[in-house]
């Protein structure tokens, strides 16, 4: 007999791999994305930093070379030209001087000044903006060649200024100043080209970095994904799921640990299963062992009871007691077996579609309670139930009401929609798992209320009334009007287990006029399934 020890996932459970919402979160915050982003950022930072440093150095070097060349050229040319230049100059000779200096310097604009005279090698060029006051004053201060980089009309220029000194002895300042303006656009373009080539190189660098990151992510993620899959399988109940251990890195360690854990889990699961199987076998064995003598006693007790009238009074009493107690023992063993079967998961629901009003009436009639109970049964309520188990529940609830409560006992069958209201108190064990995929407001239930008008149950008894062998206080137990002898103390627990087996539950509450109200909730499933 294969008792269903394990419950698989409920139908409609989330498929492995998570909900779409989790998937999208993973895209944003996933390991792969984070790795790629990190790699790219690192690559960018290093590329940009290296470029910046290289650019700065290159630019400085280029500029310095240009400056040095310009300064040297100017100085050499001016020295050469100034050697046969007579002071003081007039405008024309100054102009010639400037032109001469400029000729030897290539495409440079040369400005020569002598006190108020100014001569420019290129008369069309505007030079005022490029020769700054500070340069002029520095030159006039007369300590050698000066130069300055200026931006004029957004273009870079190098302006070299030098005072012309007398060649003889004391090297006095002659009053003649020469300024040469060199165009730096070519150098700027050179360094800009460097930047452009770096900019063009950045994209491949980023792509390569991303690819590398993906590769790295792959090597990390593949084992992680495998582990994830294996863990999922483990969670699904496949305890034989293992992962391949490759290499000696941390992931391999993790895989090894996973396998060891799974081994341990499988071993303990096997042990548990074995114990469960043993327990189930034990129940079956005990069941058989107990029932055999009970079967014999039950049979012969009948004979004793039948003949009790012909026995002497004492023997008659003894015979009747033996009969009654044998029946009670038989019931107790029966209930004990039943609850053990629930514990061992050796219970199968034998469900067929049935008319519940008929079922309730049949249960009452079977026990001769029809006259003692007021019924208000909704007709035509059909649901898929196990008739025998519903009978057990009805018999238990009504039997308790008749035994412990006071008349009138009313039994009400109705249908309700919405979540099962499980009264003020519930059995302390886990709540019913509602099987419908949209639990809550749309649920349809069949409810069977069994109400009595006795003293009711005190709150603490309501908490415990479904516990095994729990007997409510003496006030509620009336030994008179005993319909079927003493209960076994397991009836309510069995009734609740049977309700749960159907996906329902039993609640208990205080009636409006006192007394106890037990309510059975069963899901109203109409989909007929045939026990073929």
């Amino acid at each position: 007999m294969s008792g269903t020890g394990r419950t698989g996932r409920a139908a409609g459970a989330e498929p492995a791999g998570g909900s779409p919402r989790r998937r999208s979160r993973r895209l944003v915050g996933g390991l792969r994305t984070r790795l790629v982003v990190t790699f790219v950022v690192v690559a960018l930072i290093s590329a940009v930093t290296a470029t910046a440093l290289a650019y700065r150095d290159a630019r400085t070097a280029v500029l310095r070379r240009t400056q040095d060349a310009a300064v040297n050229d100017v100085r050499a040319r001016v020295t050469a030209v100034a050697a046969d230049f007579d002071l003081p100059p007039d405008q024309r000779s100054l102009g010639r001087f400037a032109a001469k200096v400029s000729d030897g310097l290539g495409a440079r604009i040369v400005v020569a000044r002598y006190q108020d005279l100014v001569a420019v090698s290129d008369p069309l060029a505007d030079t005022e903006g490029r020769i700054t006051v500070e340069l002029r004053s520095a030159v006039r201060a007369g300590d050698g060649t000066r130069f300055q980089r200026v931006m004029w009309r957004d273009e870079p220029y190098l302006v070299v200024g030098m005072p012309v000194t007398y060649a003889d002895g004391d090297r006095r300042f002659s009053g003649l100043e020469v300024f040469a303006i060199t165009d730096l656009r070519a150098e700027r373009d050179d360094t800009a080209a460097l930047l452009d080539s770096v900019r063009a190189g950045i994209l491949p660098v980023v792509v390569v970095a991303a690819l590398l990151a993906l590769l790295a992510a792959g090597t990390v993620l593949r084992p992680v994904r495998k582990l994830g899959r294996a863990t999922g399988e483990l969670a699904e109940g496949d305890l034989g799921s293992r992962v391949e251990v490759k290499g000696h890195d941390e992931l391999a360690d993790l895989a090894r640990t996973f396998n060891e854990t799974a081994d341990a889990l499988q071993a303990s699961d096997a042990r548990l299963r074995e114990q469960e199987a043993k327990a189930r076998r034990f129940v079956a064995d005990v069941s058989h062992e107990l029932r055999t003598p009970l079967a014999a006693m039950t049979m012969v007790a009948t004979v004793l009871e039948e003949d009790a009238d012909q026995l002497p009074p004492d023997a008659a009493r003894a015979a009747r007691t033996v009969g009654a107690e044998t029946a009670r023992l038989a019931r107790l063993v029966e209930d004990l077996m039943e609850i053990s079967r629930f514990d061992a998961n050796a219970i199968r629901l034998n469900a067929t579609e049935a008319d519940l009003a008929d079922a309730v009436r049949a249960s009452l009639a079977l026990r001769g309670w029809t006259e003692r109970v007021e019924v208000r049964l909704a007709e035509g309520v059909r649901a898929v139930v196990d008739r025998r188990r519903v009978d057990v529940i009805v018999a238990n609830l009504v039997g308790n009401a008749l035994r412990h409560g006071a008349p009138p006992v009313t039994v009400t069958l109705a249908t309700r929609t919405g979540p099962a209201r499980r009264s003020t108190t519930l059995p302390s064990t886990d709540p019913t798992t509602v099987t419908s995929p949209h639990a809550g407001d749309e649920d349809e239930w069949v409810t069977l209320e069994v109400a009595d008008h006795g003293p009711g149950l005190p709150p603490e008894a309501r908490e415990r009334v479904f516990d095994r062998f729990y007997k409510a206080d003496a006030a509620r137990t009336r030994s008179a009007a005993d319909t079927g002898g003493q209960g076994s103390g397991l009836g309510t627990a069995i009734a609740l287990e049977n309700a749960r087996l159907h996906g329902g539950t039993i609640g208990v509450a205080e009636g409006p006029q006192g007394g106890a109200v037990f309510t059975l909730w069963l899901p109203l499933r109409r989909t007929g399934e045939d026990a073929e």
Partner: protein
Amino acid sequence: MPHVLLIEDDASVRDGMELVLRRHGYDVDTAATGEEALALLDAPDGARIELAVLDLMLPGMDGFEVCRRVRARTATLPVIMLTARGDDHDIVTGLEAGADDYVVKPVTAPVLEARIRAALRRAEPTGAPGPVGAAGARPPGGEDFAGLVIDRAGLTVTKHGAVIPLPPTELRLLLELSASPGRVFSREQLLASVWDHTFLGDSRLVDAAVGRLRAKLEDVPARPRYVQTVRGFGYRFGPL
């Protein structure tokens, strides 16, 4: 004096049952093992036995096997299983092996007796359900349902001329269903009318009997023509 064969390995249970049944006017043969029981049935006076009460847990050959062999020998002997377990598996397997009914140990004398009486009534050659009327109203030789001939008077079923021996419960079930072809019977109705259960019967009795009946009547038991299932309601005979 109905003659009952008790097959039970536990001496006390056997004695207790025998005592009770004898007191209530039954002739009782007892057997402690399946082999012993089969030997009694095979004996020259084995035909006296009208019903077997069979414990499932037997030393040697178990009750299921005994049941199958009894069915192989005689189609008509009612068999009531005694199960000490009441496990679904036992009950279903026992019914599939051909038992007509089952009781769970410990069983009280009144319940056992009621079951024995009901099983014997099913085996009686009278009181067959059917259209009310004189015997002459029935077609001689029985009604023909597409090659399946059911003779309500003679209580025989033939298919294409070959007699199909049916155990009493299956025969009653077929008679009940075929009395109103096309009408749907719920399992509860069938339990009340065929098994005579005045208690809350087990619908598996009906399902198992239908299954055994189909195995004997239908060309393709998986696609029944005669005894059809009406999902969620029960069974009906036909329509052919």
